[in-house]
């Protein structure tokens, strides 16, 4: 009985000591961040690249240079395989067991949405979620990473309907939060030009056969067909179009889709496709930050090819490190948020100068590309969404 009483006493002492203790996830020598991501399932390649070859690449660079204010960064990741309930369990585990300071770059709208309320309630920063639905907007503890769908849509429609005077648009979209948030935004932006979508066909998530939808869209005779899909069915739509000889439409991919994976899958059917790119070409760009990224990749993971996913994770790591640096030695969650909100014209060498502000959106731009001989060729300077 004595031991039980002393245990209770110990517990009481520990509990009462908690509020006075330092910020969770921040010790004298270490800074712990983590996230739930897809390391199995449909987006496993993306998940691996943005975390283990993206965030961790920048973390290796920072740690080898002495860390942030004397603290080395440690990352913890768990696999949710794109299943929301696993994302919830993983996120709870990260916050309550691993005691992470912040969640970094979790992937996909459903897993991210499933954890939003929990993270807000527990005041845990959710840094740069890798998804494009505006559901993350207006949250105190979320800093959005990827350019949101309504901003992408505005840039795409302004460029196509405004500059290139195109009148007839159609969309092939994934039937979920990702696809529908783009569809809503397209309709709203087209209305500004007095236009409407002439056709819109949905594809269920996980379905690869899009032949019926492509045939229906062809009948609507659009000049431009937007592809709001994931790489597998996106490439399938291009192949299908080639097969049925539908040449009088321009296929345009949305930001999340404009990447190498989609190109490789579509082969020569991707030739001439245009799109909004959120990242400079990680393999060929001469921007100083991208060159440095390639050097770091060569040094730490020489077997891993540079790609748009790992550069997104690398960039997330860079923003976090910069925020933590600015917040100073006495780092807290609130001071990190304040530091990130203070970004004004931050030069990453990868994207145009970053200004964050109270809207918590770190990326608001993209540029126009066309596929020529299997690679993206830049057609415009950075487009603006404000």
């Amino acid at each position, binding site marked *: 009985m004595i031991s039980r009483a002393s245990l209770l006493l110990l517990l009481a002492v520990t509990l009462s000591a908690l509020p006075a203790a330092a910020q969770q996830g921040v010790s004298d020598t270490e800074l712990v961040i983590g996230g739930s991501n897809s390391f199995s399932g449909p987006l496993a390649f993306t998940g691996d690249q943005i975390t283990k070859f993206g965030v961790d690449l920048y973390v290796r660079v920072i740690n080898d240079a002495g860390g942030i204010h004397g603290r080395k960064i440690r990352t913890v990741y768990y696999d949710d395989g794109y299943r929301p*309930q696993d994302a919830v369990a993983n996120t709870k585990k990260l916050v309550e067991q691993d005691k992470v300071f912040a969640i970094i770059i979790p992937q996909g709208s459903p897993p991210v949405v499933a954890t939003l309320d929990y993270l807000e309630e527990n005041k845990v920063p959710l840094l740069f979620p890798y998804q494009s639905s505006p559901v993350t907007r207006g949250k105190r503890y979320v800093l959005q990473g990827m350019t949101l769908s309504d901003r992408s849509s505005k840039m795409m429609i302004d460029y196509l309907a405004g500059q290139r005077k195109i009148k007839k648009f159609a969309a092939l979209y994934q039937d979920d939060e990702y696809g529908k948030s783009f569809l809503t935004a397209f309709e709203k932006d087209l209305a500004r030009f007095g236009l409407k979508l002439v056709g819109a066909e949905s594809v269920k998530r996980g379905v690869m056969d899009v032949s019926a939808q492509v045939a229906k869209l062809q009948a609507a005779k659009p000049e431009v067909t937007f592809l709001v899909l994931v790489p597998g069915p996106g490439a399938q739509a291009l192949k299908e179009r080639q097969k049925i000889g539908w040449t009088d439409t321009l296929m345009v991919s949305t930001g999340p889709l404009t990447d190498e994976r989609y190109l490789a899958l579509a082969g020569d059917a991707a030739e001439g496709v245009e799109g909004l790119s959120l990242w400079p070409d990680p393999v060929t760009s001469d921007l100083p930050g991208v060159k440095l990224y390639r050097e770091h990749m060569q040094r730490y993971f020489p077997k891993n090819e540079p790609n748009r996913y790992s550069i997104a994770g690398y960039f997330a790591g860079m923003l976090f490190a910069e925020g933590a640096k600015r917040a100073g030695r006495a780092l807290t969650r609130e001071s990190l948020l304040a530091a990130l909100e203070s970004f004004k014209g931050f030069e990453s060498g990868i994207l145009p100068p970053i200004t964050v502000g109270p809207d918590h959106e770190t990326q608001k731009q993209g540029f126009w590309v066309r596929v020529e001989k299997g690679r993206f060729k830049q057609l415009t300077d950075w487009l603006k969404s404000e």
Partner: protein
Amino acid sequence: MRHAALATVAAVVVGWPWAAPRYFVFLASLIAINAIVAIGLNLLSGYTNQLSFGHAGFLAIGAYAAAILTIRAPALPVPATLLLAGLVTAAVGLALGVPCLRLEGLYLAMATLAFGFVVVEAILNLEWLTRGNDGLRVPAARIGPWILATDTARYYLVVAVAALLIVAAVNLSRTKTGRALLAVRESEIAAQASGVNLAAYKTLAFVVSAFYTGVAGGLFALVVGFLSPDSFDVFLSVDFVAMIIVGGLGSILGSVVGAAVITALNDSLAGFQNYRPLIFGAILVTSMLFMPGGIASALRKIPGAGARPPR
């Protein structure tokens, strides 16, 4: 001896949220939910020898039923919500159980596997009700003025329901019905010859099993707080089968232990799910080779620990 063991277990279960870290309270809720599913599946597979690979489908029906009720009828107290979720699922179980009477072994496994896929497709297509791929956020449930907003509150709800259903299952296994179900497992022909109405009891097993899984689904919705069709894939059904094989076919204690082992294992493998099938496979093969009766029958060799006399 039995009473002392039971009292200890009860004390640990009740005291758990005060002794364990917060995450383990959540984890314990998941274990209890999975234990209810495992008991339900065991009543079907362990007692009447009908193997199901579609229980993720039943779980989904219960979960969505409870979530939709919580959203549309927020005044409804939680016990009523859970009961209704169980009944809806039981009705679906009846509809599936009757045509499945003609199927056995592999064919039944295939039919139930297909059922799991059909449920996911139905959730995807009934968008006005389920919000399809977008997923459904489940608000906190309430019993009168009491809102289940914390992990601890939800834990006590889950544990109370689980205890009730365990007692019910233990009692059922000791009645005429329980013996009839066991007789069906041992030999359908012999059972029929002894006057057991085969069709009625096999269907009953399906309905009761679906009811248990539906209630567990309702609890799952409340504890996890977000539902999406991605949650209820075929691997979840396989996990449930693994629980009863590792724990012990035809044993209620085994179901609980199996659920605890598999859930805890899943949790500890969260960092590297790519190896999960390998590790699970190895555990299944090992337990079938060296512990064909599951953990429950291995435990039985320890005096005082057995829950049910050996068959």
